[in-house]
Each structure stands twice: as structure tokens, then as C-alpha cells.
């Protein structure tokens, strides 16, 4: 009997439908900067605000994807993914700071303003190389990746899992936040980095640059999705799922689960770093607040709301929850945290498979 000729299960059809929906959605996003060019009076005109906020959400969607890979597939519930996002952002921020050059308020040829203000005489060694774009991009991957490698190795090797791992990762992002708040760390302390001028030789404050960053993020989202899809549909993806559901059993089949989890965790951290790096030039600032534990928890809620272990759900969740947040924070700012908490409770209790699960329920 050939297995290939079996009819596609309803599940597979649904998955196909969801992917088609996602493709359409990406297309929709792709025309937004074009519609922004239409005159304001035109009915299809998309406002600057909407384009710029959508650009941010695209970065959040990449972060959600990365978290889904770690949590939804490998079962690593990281409550510190915001730290990887922030580190990617800081690496990009350092590059942008170096590119300011003598245009800072103090006019120092090399040192960023905050260093002049704090009385630095020369650039700290760990700032060297960040004037180069390729080097900075490498750091966007390597810094979060290395942190994930160290934290992951220490915990997976000691078989720290479940809630203990979640607490550990949460402590990690909290500790980083405190560290980055300190002025003597050399990362601008409280204020972080801002007043960026240019990237790749182009000024940041032009429509062309904004569209460029938007499309770069969209491309990164598509590539991240395809990468995650490739991973999760491979036998490696099935090993991760097996580890998520019965890690000890996987070991008895001869898989070194520490290595498998580490591989997924590091990859996921790197994706989160890319998301952060694309986010920073679009919002024009990075500060220690990005390490706030609440950010990491929010990312978990996006994935939970969308439906974990589905990839499409992560993207869906990032856009819906952030859409809701933007709308609510202007309509009823005091309510947002309650709504977010309530949303999480509701989804956990009634929609364990998230919005995607809702769609699944309908096709059956």
C-alpha cells in the first residue's frame, strides 16, 4: 500500500487553507506602502501611522514565530524571548549610533553623545567593529544566539524544564534589563540609543527608507516563516514535537535531546534577534525597557492566542493582539493590562489551541 495516495486529512486541507490565507495577508501587507503614496483624499489611501505601526507588528510576528518554534514545537516555554529581541535591537542600535558620526549634539567624530556626556575618552572595545554593517548584522545573530547557547546548555544539560525553565528565562531578561539600565555598561543606560541618522548610506527619515525597512521586515517574515516551515515539516521538527510531549522517551530512542533542544533554542533566539534589529530603525529608539519581563510574557500571549505549534497561529496572534492593543490603548488605556490578562485566561481555559483551533473545530 502506498501511503502517498491516501486522501489529505481535513487537518492537512485546513493547513493548506491557512497558508493560502497567510499568503493573501502578506500580499495585502505588501501593497500598504504603495497605497500610502496615494493622495490623502483617495479612498484607498493608507496613513503613515498605519504603515509604520504595521512595520512594527511585522517584527513582532517574527518574534512570535521564533517563540512558536521554541515553545510550540520544542516545548521550551521561554519567558525571556524579549531579551533576544532586545539584544538584536541593541546590536542594530550600536551600528546606527556609530553611523551618526560627528552629527551628534556634541559633534564628537566617533563617540556617541551619551559617551561624551559620561566622560568617555575612547570607544569601549565591545563597540569596535559596529561601524561595519556586515559585522553588526553578524552580531544581531551571534549575540542572542550565544546567550541562548549558554543559558540553554546550562539548563537543558541539567534537565531543567517546564516552569523552572520559564522562571529562569524570565530572570535572565530581568537581569539584563537591570544591567542595561546602568550607565557604566556603556549602552546608554536609561535612555538607550536614539536620534539615529542613517542606515546603509540613506537617511532614515524619508518615505523611501521607511518603505525599505517595511519591505525588509516583510521579507524577513516570509523567509522566517519558510525556514520554520522547513524545520517543522522535517524529521527534526517531529523530533522536537516528540521531545515536547515525552522527552525522556525520545532519549531512549537514542536522541541526545539536549543537543536537539539547544539547536532549536539558539535558532529561535537568532530569529528573535533579527526581529529586534528590524524593529529598532523603524521605531527610532532602543532602551532597556525592551528587556522588560512583561514584553516576553506578551509575546507568549500572542502565540497562545493565535494557536501554538502552528506557525500561522503565531503570526495571526501577533497581529490580532497588537491590533487590539493599539485600538484599546487609545480607546481605554487603563483597560489594556486587564484585557491582556483576561485574554490569556480565556484562551488557556476555552481555546487551548488558540484562534487556529477555532478554525479547526469548524472544519470537523
Amino acid at each position, binding site marked *: 500500500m502506498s501511503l502517498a495516495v491516501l486522501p489529505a486529512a481535513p487537518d492537512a486541507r485546513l493547513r493548506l487553507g491557512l497558508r493560502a490565507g497567510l499568503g493573501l495577508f502578506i500580499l495585502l501587507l505588501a501593497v500598504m506602502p504603495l497605497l500610502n503614496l496615494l493622495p490623502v483624499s483617495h479612498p484607498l489611501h493608507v496613513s503613515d501611522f498605519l504603515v509604520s505601526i504595521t512595520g512594527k507588528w511585522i517584527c513582532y510576528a517574527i518574534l512570535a514565530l521564533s517563540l512558536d518554534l521554541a515553545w510550540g514545537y520544542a516545548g521550551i516555554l521561554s519567558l525571556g524571548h524579549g531579551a533576544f529581541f532586545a539584544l538584536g535591537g541593541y546590536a542594530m542600535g550600536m551600528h546606527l549610533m556609530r553611523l551618526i558620526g560627528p552629527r551628534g549634539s556634541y559633534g564628537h567624530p566617533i563617540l556617541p553623545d551619551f559617551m561624551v556626556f559620561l566622560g568617555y575618552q575612547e570607544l569601549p572595545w565591545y563597540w569596535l567593529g559596529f561601524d561595519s554593517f556586515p559585522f553588526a548584522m553578524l552580531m544581531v545573530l551571534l549575540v542572542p544566539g550565544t546567550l541562548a547557547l549558554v543559558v540553554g546548555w546550562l539548563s537543558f544539560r541539567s534537565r531543567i524544564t517546564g516552569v523552572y525553565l520559564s522562571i529562569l528565562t524570565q530572570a535572565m531578561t530581568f537581569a539584563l534589563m537591570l544591567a542595561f539600565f546602568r550607565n557604566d555598561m556603556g549602552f546608554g543606560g536609561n535612555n538607550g540609543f536614539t536620534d539615529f541618522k542613517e542606515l546603509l548610506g540613506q537617511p532614515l527619515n524619508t518615505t523611501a527608507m521607511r518603505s525599505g525597512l517595511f519591505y525588509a521586515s516583510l521579507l524577513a517574515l516570509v523567509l522566517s516563516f519558510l525556514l520554520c516551515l522547513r524545520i517543522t515539516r522535517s524529521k527534526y521538527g517531529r523530533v522536537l*514535537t516528540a521531545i515536547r510531549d515525552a522527552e525522556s522517551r525520545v532519549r*531512549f*530512542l*537514542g536522541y541526545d535531546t539536549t543537543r536537539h533542544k539547544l539547536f532549536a533554542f539558539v535558532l529561535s533566539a537568532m530569529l528573535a534577534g533579527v526581529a529586534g534589529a528590524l524593529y529598532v530603525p523603524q521605531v527610532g529608539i532602543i532602551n532597556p525597557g525592551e528587556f522588560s519581563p512583561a514584553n516576553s510574557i506578551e509575546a507568549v500571549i500572542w502565540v497562545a492566542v493565535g494557536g501554538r505549534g502552528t506557525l500561522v497561529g503565531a503570526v495571526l496572534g501577533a497581529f490580532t493582539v497588537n491590533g487590539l492593543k493599539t485600538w484599546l490603548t487609545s480607546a481605554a488605556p487603563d483597560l489594556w493590562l486587564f484585557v491582556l490578562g483576561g485574554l490569556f485566561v480565556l484562551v488557556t481555559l476555552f481555546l487551548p489551541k488558540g484562534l487556529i483551533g477555532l478554525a479547526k473545530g469548524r472544519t470537523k
Partner: protein
Amino acid sequence: MSGGRRLYLDGVSVVFDGFRALNNLSLIVEPGELRSVIGPNGAGKTTMMDVITGKTRPTQGTVNFGEIDLTRMDEAGIANLGIGRKFQKPTMFDALTVFENMELALKAPRGPIACLRWKLTGGARAQIEQTLEEIGLQERAQDLAGILSHGQRQWLEIGMLLMQDPELLLVDEPVAGMTDAETEQTAALLVRIAGRRSVVVVEHDLEFVRALGRRVTVLCDGSVLSEGSIDHVQNDPRVIEVYLGR
């Protein structure tokens, strides 16, 4: 089987909070041998398998497979040496299909990159389908493992064990939840497997052990009470006392 490795346990004790689950246990399983292990509940049969497969570290004693000291290795390392295990409570991956469970068990490079690059070749597929047929699950290949009945789960786990192509199989209570016909089939399968590989079967069902018809070890309170043919141990007064006296 020439070139096979013998399993050698000597003076093995496992102490949980002062309780001796294994007490100075010694056991040798020759290459190609089929050995049945019986004993009352709590005798330490599962603990013995835990010690061999690296799940539990012995408090003292020697556990060797050929020349290799198993007490220094982790579960994955021991599995890759060629020691496969079927658990007393069948455990598999419920979110994966029967076929995917078999594919994960199939002997192949186990690293992340190798798994990422893995392509199911015709040969591997044929091997999986053939084993599925042998365990009677070919019709269920595309079903999620989570929806199988208890007996089918037993079969699937035996199938997964076969896919690993181990040199030594540790089979913990394989026929619990099986019909009489299935029990007979399982006995026949294990007898067929042995010879090419060593097999250690833990079982309560004495009829099943009789059907296997090989050397039997009786465990009680963590050590060997009696060893020999099924007739020998069934007539051993100490065994009778343990089985009937309780």
C-alpha cells in the same frame, strides 16, 4: 550469535530513600539469548531495566554490555549502543502518526542536522511498511498514535523497538492488554527475534513465559530467587512460597 555482546549485571543494588528496590542482583544474558524474567509486583523488574538503560543509576554494582560500563553512559548513549527498550506502560508520541513514530525509531543518524536533512528513501519506507505489516498496524499508518487502543499501542512500541534494530531488547510486560491470539503472536515474534539479538522479557503471564520456552529468572525483593527452565522454577519451593504464600 558470534560477535554479540553479553549483558552482565553483578552485585547491583538500587536504594530509594533507604528502600532496596534491587538488592545485590546478578544476571548474565548471553548474546542471542531469550530470557524471561518473572516475579511478583514490586520485585524490581522494571528497576532492573531502568538500571540497564541509564534511567536509574545503581547505588552499587557492575552493569556491563560487552566491555562497556553502562553506568557511565546516558540514556541516548546506551540506546545508540544497541540497547532498545519497550516500557511497561506503552509510551510513544501521540501527536505523531503511527508511521512517523516508526520513522523516528528507525535506525539512522540522530543529530539535529542529520534529522533536518533526512529524506525518507524507498528502502526506509519499505522497511517501515514491512514492520507495520508484521505488527498488524499497516491500516493505521496515517492515524495519530494517540487514538490507538492499548493493545495496538503495545504493538506499535514493539514495532518501534524493531525499527531501532537493537542488539539487546528489553521488553517490559508486552502482552498486558492483548487478546490470547495476540499474546501467542507476540511470543512467536519474540522467539523469532531472539538468536539474531538478545531479548529480555519481563512478564507476569506464566502461560506466555511457558510459550517462550526458554530460561527463566525469578526476581523477588530485588534479587534473583531462582533460575532455570520454566518447569524447574515452577517446582522450586521458594518460588512456590513467594507466589502462593502471599
